[in-house]
């Protein structure tokens, strides 16, 4: 920066009152609306606290004399690089800056309002406006003019009246007629399906994804193969602008993960997206509230801290995953102990733009070994996402846009019996379909639907307890999942419970392996076979549990706590013995006769308070996985089909408008050329 002038010393000048804008078209006949109120001016600039030792950045008042250089002049005065080191374009820019900073070029403008400084009359008189005067070449100026003309903005010749580069054209003038026609056609196209189903066009999306090695079917299949011990990292990389398209995908992915009993860890490099994730969890909680349940943060899901730094933040997630998962979005310790991203069963990325997907594909995917990245994107990011999905084995995907969300919901409904969308025309419900919770009141045979739904839930529960947890969907290839923690079967006469035996357990005599707590003190049952894992519940001496397996060295037993919920207990705290299933279940029933009714989970919460870390323990009743599954997939889908029809009609209207508009303008251009040829 030059030594002669410090731009920080500028202060703003009094603004001259703008001349009243000329009104054209029908607006001339409309009454003038009062201007927005201005706040009273304070007698002087507020005195801000000064800290000794810091440089004084601004003077309180300096009269800007004519001839003071503008910001463009300062650019020209830079002496960081010798002139001979500049290329032609920068030299040209420097010359233009010097030419624009003559004394009459409205010097001394305030720097508070950037446009007041940059948009000087001298610059506005340039052919391409302020941007082209400073930075654009001739060809780029022409492109700017072309683009401005295409989108209907005013050219520079039209816009000399004031500071605005693109003054609004009169709303009802003849020149605005094409814009009104196009807007009306589009508005009709996207609105009619919400008014009446008579305007329904097009077919609904398929009820299943087409089979592809790494397509959307593989994404569904992988999430459907999750088990109760799995955790899934869910990255929310979208803002409110894409919420309409991506919220359904995010919600379905989260509901599916929770329905499988897995735990989602939500993370984002956008603070807004973290809040968005909380809202989606709240929507899911409204569904499960019908069963008197709720998802508990810290047990059923985690929202981790925001990752600052964009792609660097994502890199940090990869490099320091243990640190990132340690703290939640509210600054509370989560108690999670994961070493790397490979501890996740999958990484689900819900991305708004191709840039977000590129960041994750470059910063995270190369470090993954067994874990897969599942891509959920909008239609705008789909082409680039498809390239990544086709190129790398680590990326499964992609599920893109609202139509794929509909198909995903249909597949969940087929499997779990969740709610079905209501079409505009009332249709008789097929006998084999299962009505959703929020639509049951409208069904003629609500009791029958309830019975069918209960039966479907039992079928889903039975399917989830199959010995092979990675049951693929019939249309999808088996996914290559990370194997669950090693369970070494004990050489004993243990009969692993089969799913088909569960509903009729009393009909067979079966010997099972159980462990009984022998420690005189309360013992902890954890989520995994290490002392660092979360505590699921406590057990007392005499409590017994069915053994599902053990870890590799036999120091921890994997035990069943409830249907779909398993935990780990240290081997030295218990004694192993065999029992019949009937006797074991009878003992469990008598033991559970008294309160508490549900499994009790001990949760530890650490709160920072002025440097002190104070652990606080309290007990919460956590719903079992099977309870959750009954309600977690219930969604209100009444607007899905009208939205799909609106998308179809809107796209048709857009294609029609583009085609007819261009035919009209092309004919006009041809006529003009012919006229010029004659002349």
């Amino acid at each position, binding site marked *: 920066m030059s030594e002669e002038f410090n731009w920080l010393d500028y202060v703003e000048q009094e603004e001259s009152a703008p001349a009243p804008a000329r009104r054209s078209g029908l607006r001339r006949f409309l009454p003038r609306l009062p201007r927005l109120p201005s706040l009273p001016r304070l007698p002087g600039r507020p005195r801000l606290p000064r800290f000794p030792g810091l440089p004084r950045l601004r003077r309180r008042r300096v009269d800007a004399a004519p001839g003071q250089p503008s910001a463009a002049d300062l650019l020209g005065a830079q002496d960081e690089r010798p002139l001979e080191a500049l290329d032609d374009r920068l030299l040209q820019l420097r010359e233009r800056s010097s030419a624009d900073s003559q004394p009459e070029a409205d010097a001394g403008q305030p720097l508070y309002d950037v446009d007041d400084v940059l948009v000087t009359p001298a610059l506005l008189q340039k052919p391409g406006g302020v941007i082209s005067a400073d930075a654009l070449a001739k060809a780029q100026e022409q492109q700017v003019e*072309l683009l401005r003309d295409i989108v209907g903005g005013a050219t520079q010749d039209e816009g000399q009246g004031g500071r605005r580069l693109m003054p609004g054209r009169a709303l009802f003038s003849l020149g605005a007629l094409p814009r009104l026609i*196009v807007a009306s056609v589009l508005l009709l196209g996207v609105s009619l399906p919400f008014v009446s189903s008579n305007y329904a066009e097009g*077919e609904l999306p398929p009820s299943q994804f087409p089979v592809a090695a790494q397509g959307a079917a593989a994404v569904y299949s992988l999430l459907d193969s999750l088990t109760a011990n799995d955790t899934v990292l869910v990255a929310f990389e979208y803002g409110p602008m894409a919420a309409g398209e991506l919220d359904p995908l995010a919600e379905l992915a989260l509901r599916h993960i929770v329905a499988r009993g897995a735990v989602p860890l939500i993370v984002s490099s956008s603070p807004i997206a973290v809040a*968005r994730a909380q*809202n989606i969890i709240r929507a899911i909680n409204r569904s499960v509230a019908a069963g008197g349940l709720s998802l508990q943060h810290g047990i059923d899901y985690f929202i981790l801290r925001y990752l600052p730094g964009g792609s660097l933040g994502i890199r940090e997630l990869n490099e320091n995953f243990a640190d990132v998962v340690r703290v939640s979005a509210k600054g509370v310790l989560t108690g999670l102990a994961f070493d790397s991203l490979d501890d996740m069963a999958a990484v689900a990325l819900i991305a708004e733009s191709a840039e977000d997907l590129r960041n994750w594909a470059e910063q995270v995917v190369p470090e993954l070994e067994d874990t897969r990245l599942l891509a959920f994107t909008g239609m705008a990011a789909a*082409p680039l996402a498809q390239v990544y999905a086709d190129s790398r084995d680590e990326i499964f995907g992609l599920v893109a846009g609202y139509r794929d969300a509909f198909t995903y919901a249909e597949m969940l409904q087929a499997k779990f019996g969740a709610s079905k969308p209501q079409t505009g025309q009332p249709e008789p419900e097929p006998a084999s379909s299962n009505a959703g919770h929020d639509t049951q009141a409208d069904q003629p045979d609500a009791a029958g639907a309830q019975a069918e739904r209960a039966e479907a839930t039992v079928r889903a529960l039975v399917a989830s307890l199959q010995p092979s947890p990675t049951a693929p969907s019939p249309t999808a290839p088996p996914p290559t999942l990370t194997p669950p923690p090693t369970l070494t079967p004990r050489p004993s006469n243990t009969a692993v419970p089969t799913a088909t035996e569960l509903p009729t357990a009393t009909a067979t005599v079966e010997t099972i392996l159980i462990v009984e707590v022998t420690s005189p003190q309360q013992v902890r049952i954890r989520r995994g076979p290490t002392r660092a894992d979360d505590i699921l519940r406590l057990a007392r001496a005499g409590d017994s549990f069915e053994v599902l397996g053990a870890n590799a060295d036999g120091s921890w037993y994997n035990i069943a706590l409830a249907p779909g919920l398993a935990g780990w207990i240290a081997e030295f705290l218990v004694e192993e013995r065999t029992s019949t299933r009937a006797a074991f279940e009878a003992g469990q029933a008598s033991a559970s006769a008294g309160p508490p009714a549900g499994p009790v989970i001990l949760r530890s919460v650490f709160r920072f308070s002025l440097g002190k870390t104070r652990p606080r323990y309290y007990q919460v009743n956590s719903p079992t996985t099977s309870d959750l599954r009954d309600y977690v997939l219930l969604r209100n889908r009444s607007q899905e089909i009208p939205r799909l029809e609106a998308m179809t009609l809107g*796209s048709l209207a857009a294609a029609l408008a583009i085609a007819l*508009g261009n035919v009209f*303008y092309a004919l006009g251009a041809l006529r003009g050329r012919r006229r010029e040829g004659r002349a």
Partner: protein
Amino acid sequence: MGRAGISAFVAFAVGLLTLLSLLLGDNPALFGGQPGSEVLAERLALPGDVLLRLVVIVVALSIVIGIANLLYVHVGRVARGKFYSAVLLASFAFTIYWYVTNRGDSSLLEAAQVPIESALASLLFFSLVYGGARVMRKRADIWGLLFVAVVIIVLLGSLPLAELAPVKAWSDWLMAVPVSAGARAILLGIALGTVVAGVRAMLGQDRSYRG
């Protein structure tokens, strides 16, 4: 060596250290699996790890500084009677108050920001269609015709109408071949550009390190 030279040297050294750390760290196979190679790889990874954390902390702090600067500027504008700056400051204060008194309640986001941004996205649809309808107004040539034809084919090809099956085949081809090739070319260009920009930044060609 002046102050700028020292700054450029420090930037170059830190950049090179980070680069080597990321390339060589945590990769014992590069050292032939010799005894101690794992320890060496871990030590090489450490500088990059530390610098990465420092950068993230600085970025997080810069957000706080940005908020302070925003408030500073708009307090000055309110003093000059700027109405919208007063709205901004009032919104800022109200949002802080709301979040502190209703922990975890993000209904403001749901009620204000999401509808506003969704509405903007919807307006973009109208603007794009209107722009597409006026392409031939200014540029009635073969390129304008090509642009319009591709837009219409892709739009119609995305529709779930059985009558448009042939158009859908063309649309699929366009997406699978030219669009995919263009996307790959963009990715290659970004990668090459990132390498060049990184080298230029490390050598002090693009950035001034004069402090």
